[in-house]
């Protein structure tokens, strides 16, 4: 494809409609009150929406090959960062160490009435 645009433009309004519906669903999901369902819906739909936007609006899939690879590599490195950091920051106890401060925060927060004003 070139910027002088000899690309086939799909029906963007349709795609937009799908995106809106998805957004609505993910909000409606919160009314079920089932935690795992809410989270699953929310993030599952987020991924789908992101894919639709990237594919149809940003035209990633018909862009030069290296572009999608580039973006995927970026996401992979972010995942590496998460994997390397989480064992120390996400967990509050490990081999011969424990994050007392965080544990206490969790304790206090879970009981407090208005945790925002801790």
């Amino acid at each position, binding site marked *: 494809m070139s910027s002088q645009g000899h690309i086939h433009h799909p029906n963007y309004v349709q795609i937009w409609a799908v995106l809106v519906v998805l957004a609505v669903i993910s909000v409606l999901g919160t009314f079920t009150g089932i935690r795992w369902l809410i989270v699953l819906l929310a993030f599952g739909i987020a991924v789908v929406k992101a894919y639709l936007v990237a594919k149809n609006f940003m035209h990633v899939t018909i862009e030069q090959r290296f572009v999608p690879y580039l973006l995927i590599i970026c996401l992979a490195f972010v995942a590496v960062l998460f994997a390397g950091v989480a064992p120390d920051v996400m967990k509050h106890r490990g*081999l*011969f*160490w*424990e*994050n*007392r*401060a*965080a544990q206490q925060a969790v304790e206090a927060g879970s009981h407090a009435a208005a945790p925002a004003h801790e």
Partner: protein
Amino acid sequence: MLERFMTGASTYSGSVDHLIFLIAALVGFWLIVAEAFFFWLMFRYRHREGRTTQYVTGDEKELKRWISVPHMLVIVCDLVIVVGAVKVWMDIKQTMPPAEQTVRIYAQQWAWSFVDPGPDGMLDTGDDIRTVGELHVKVNTTYHFELLSRDVLHSFCVPAFRLKQDAVPGRTIRGWFRATRPGTYDIQCTQMCGMGHGVMAGRVIVETPEQHAQWLERVSNPAFAPQQAVSSPAPASAASAQVAEVRP
């Protein structure tokens, strides 16, 4: 080998030294080989009138071998080093031999303070002994320590024990050591902790059972205990002295 630079006074100081020696031997060998070959090439192929350079792309099999074979050998050496390193690491940081005694170490700007369980051997009891700047331990006794920080990052380092562990505020980090040689050894703070970082010293005093008993006897006498804290020499007071003199 490292003994020449710094005495080793813990059970694992020897294994650290051996690992350093192993790595030194392996990488030393490669360093010498590489440098020697490098300088020989420099001499052998220095410019002389009428010498034409050879057109070598580096893809020729027989030449590539000169890279690939050493390359494989280096990988082998790396494997040896990984095994050695992980073994020592596991021994020092990932295993905890059963404790015969447990002490608590507080780091703060800019002094070390220690809680010794006292005669009953239990922390957080009435007879705990708090000292500043001096950690008294029995020789040939496995100590566990709980490392805490009151303000910023510090690092509890006893070079003679080959021991180093950062103290992180909000966290309790546990480790162990077993002193093998009576004597007095430096405690350093090896994590930048502000103005007094360079004077945040302490001493670990490794005592024979008798000496240790005497010390216990001396400090667990209630009349003495308070002064023990304040009258403890060097670090804390020195630090504050430094602070005082540089304050504008």
